[in-house]
């Protein structure tokens, strides 16, 4: 995977950080979907992002890729602040897949990947109309590169099929191939194994490892815990828009609050004022300003100002 020349960044970090999100907050009117999330991804790292449904994971992804402009906070990639235009984010080297597959359904498999090459080719309309040698060379290179990616993901034999006709698992693979075609330094995968059977999940796991082996860092959202803990160097847990904890698989797995966030707390703990006793600090310096509610109520409204307003209605 080729990387842009500004790989050696000046922002002093312990590791070679390629993505740095600082205090990303996303508000939709009164609803704060993501609140002050910090996250870094080092080069060649696989980072997992987990959390219950509605925790703001996909919103955070959209903030990273420019589909949403974060209300507060900055996202920088290799030391430069990322643009707020999604197509420039891709150009800079951050590619993504979508939670609900968004292929170009009526284009062939090969065409899908060729569209992914868009930012890495320059040929404009004039070049297309005049069909000079440069155009032909670029098209040939693009097609070669696309075919390599299809080989890599095991879809080469389906190059002329329409994307809509691929089975589900292959559609997911094709989406990854399409994202890889933009030669990203960081790949964001939004639930790559949703709806897959165990074999397919394992295949995806191998694919992600192979992508990392080529030098691309991966940030992955997933609900499949085995997948996450097998794969990721670090895992961040997002609950109600806030980062609860970040650490290695063992640390995260052992954390009570993570278990509570996923499974809920036992009933006898769930006294009306229990959710709002703020834990002092997190193990690895997560800001402790906001308090993730320990019950799994899907209420993500800002719990900030009137702290006395508890989650009434759960338990008397």
């Amino acid at each position, binding site marked *: 995977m080729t990387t842009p020349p500004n790989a050696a960044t000046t922002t002093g970090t312990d590791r070679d950080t390629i993505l740095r999100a600082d205090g990303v907050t996303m508000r939709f009117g009164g609803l704060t979907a993501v609140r002050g999330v910090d996250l870094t991804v080092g080069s060649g790292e696989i980072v997992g992002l987990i959390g219950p449904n509605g925790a703001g994971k996909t919103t955070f992804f959209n903030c990273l890729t420019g*589909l949403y402009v974060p209300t507060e906070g900055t996202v920088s990639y290799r030391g430069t602040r990322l643009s707020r235009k999604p197509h420039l984010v*891709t*150009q800079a080297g951050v590619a993504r897949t979508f939670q609900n597959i968004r292929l170009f359904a009526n*284009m062939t498999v090969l065409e899908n990947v060729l569209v992914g*090459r868009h930012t890495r080719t320059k040929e404009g309309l004039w070049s297309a109309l005049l069909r000079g040698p440069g155009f032909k060379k670029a098209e040939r290179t693009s097609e070669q590169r696309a075919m390599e990616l299809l080989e890599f993901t095991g879809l080469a034999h389906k190059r002329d*099929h329409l994307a809509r006709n691929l089975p589900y698992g292959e559609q997911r693979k094709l989406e990854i191939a399409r994202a890889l075609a933009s030669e990203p330094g960081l790949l964001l995968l939004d639930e790559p194994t949703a709806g897959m059977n165990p074999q397919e999940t394992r295949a995806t796991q191998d694919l992600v490892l192979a992508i990392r082996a080529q030098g691309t860092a991966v940030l992955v959202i997933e609900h499949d815990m085995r997948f996450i803990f097998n794969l990721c160097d670090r895992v961040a847990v997002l609950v109600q828009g806030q980062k609860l904890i970040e650490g290695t698989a063992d640390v995260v797995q052992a954390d009570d609050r993570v278990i509570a966030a996923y499974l809920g707390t036992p009933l006898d703990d769930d006294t009306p004022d229990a959710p709002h006793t703020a834990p002092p600090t997190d193990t690895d310096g997560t800001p402790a300003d906001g308090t993730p509610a320990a019950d799994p109520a899907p209420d993500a409204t800002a719990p900030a100002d009137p702290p006395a307003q508890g989650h009434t209605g759960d338990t008397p």
Partner: protein
Amino acid sequence: MTTDTTTTPARGLLPLPERTARLTTAAGALVTALSTGLAWTWSSDFPGDLTYNLSPAGLQLITLFGGLLTLLLATSALGTRGLRWLTPAGRNAPTLLAALATFAATWFTLIAIAVQLGGLINLEPGGLLAGLASLLTLLAALALPPDTPGDTPPTGPWQRFTAALAPTPLRRRTRELPAWAEILTIAAAFAAGLLAFTYGIDTDDGAPFVGYLLFMVLAVPALHRAGLTARLTALTRTHRGVALGAAFLAAACFPFTQDTDQYTIIGANILIFATVALGLNVVVGLAGLLDLGYVAFLGVGAYAAALVSGSAESALGLHFPFWAALLTGAAASLVFGVLIGAPTLRLRGDYLAIVTLGFGEIFRIAMLNLNGTTGPDITNGAMGIPNIPNLEIFGFNFGETHTVLGIPLATYGNYYLLMILVTAFVVLVFRRAAASRIGRAWIAIREDETAAIAMGINSFRLRLLAFALGAALAGLAGTVHAHVVTTATPEQFQFAGPQPPNSAFLLAAVILGGMGTLSGPLVGAALLFLIPAKLDFLQDYQLLLFGIALVLLMRFRPEGLIPDRRKQLEFHETGQLDVPDQRLPDTDATLGATQAKA
């Protein structure tokens, strides 16, 4: 009608042994064809003069052709050596359709004679023979079993009828032909197409054209069911350049088949309309932007050309040479395209449609008001800019009649040939733009804009590019349009009206023909121009019938006449995988995978 379905499920509508039915069909078709050698009526009052023995004329020619076609298809279905290539897919469905087409055309003629001349007494024995023979052919063809016996034997007569018409996939790969033979086949097919189309243009308005239309509506599906169109499509795909060349050559031959200018003007107008439709196809078909005011760009081109082409009424009083006027028209449209597009293309879908609709009206009303009283005098208001002089290129005056190869080419013939060049240019632009990085990006935006943006496509810029390119192509056609009609008035460029080109007809041409394809809008535009022009005699009912025809077509063939492979799958969800049977012969693989549909 029998309902005896238990013993032989694969049976036709009527109880006849298969071989008998087939032989009867062939014999009936032969007699039908021969009957056109006799007089059908005694009076030459009926259009086409069907009074001669041994000299078929007018509508008799259609019956003659239909009878021969049915005969050929039926004998091919019998397995006759040397004719089997005619039916590579279905055997009986095409025979039935051809028999139906012949029957419809023949009986339409006979009824029209009886009605127009006042009574059955006006039919000569020849006409009665034709009617009986075509009826016999049809009945025998109805006894033919369906090509593909379905899982469940059809129950009622109607189900049996539709089962008999069901399409069959290509049975086998026919013998590989040498390349020259394939090219000859393509040339012959295009020549036949030209002949059929020319015949349609040349038929008189009224009954003869209705007969022609009736026949074509049924005969073309017959060829389709026989698998001939599929074979031809495969051939044109292998020889795409040759096919395009042959198509343009055939089209260029058209004015040489005409003695007068009466029909070449229709040809020239069809080409203008088709070129604009192809430009619109960039916007609607490729980039997926619904533009309801597209005719305004044709108007901008026409007005720009009118102003600089030396009309005495032009406010500018300029007289540019043709190439400069052409560039002016295209550039003016381009500028307007960008001006309209830049603020509006951030809108999506319906909103954009409304804005473009508004722009179309603004253009027309602005042209009306720039008349010296309600605004500066530029366009001469409702009177328009008249007396646009004929073009003159290198001393070749388009207004004069030139004799080429002994055939006189009058004004519209000249413009027709010029438009062929313009259309060829637009076709080239469309093909090359579609099969490139830009074209792929357009299609990606059409398919899923969010995903396209996430793939690094600057959707606003590319949409603007599509909008501007479409506008410039329309402006190009508008320049010639101004010279052909010699006047530029605001009323030519409406949203909707009984005569093309207007925005509604343009959009209909694109959708009817097949969005995103190359030949679709050309065919759609040709039909949409020709049919209203020929059905003029219906007067008030013209648009009503036309509208009903459009509704029916969209109901039963929403992907258009010449569908994009993508669209066909989109509208007819069959659940089966679209497995490409043979790898598309990518001889020019460098053109990218977005095959421009030939």
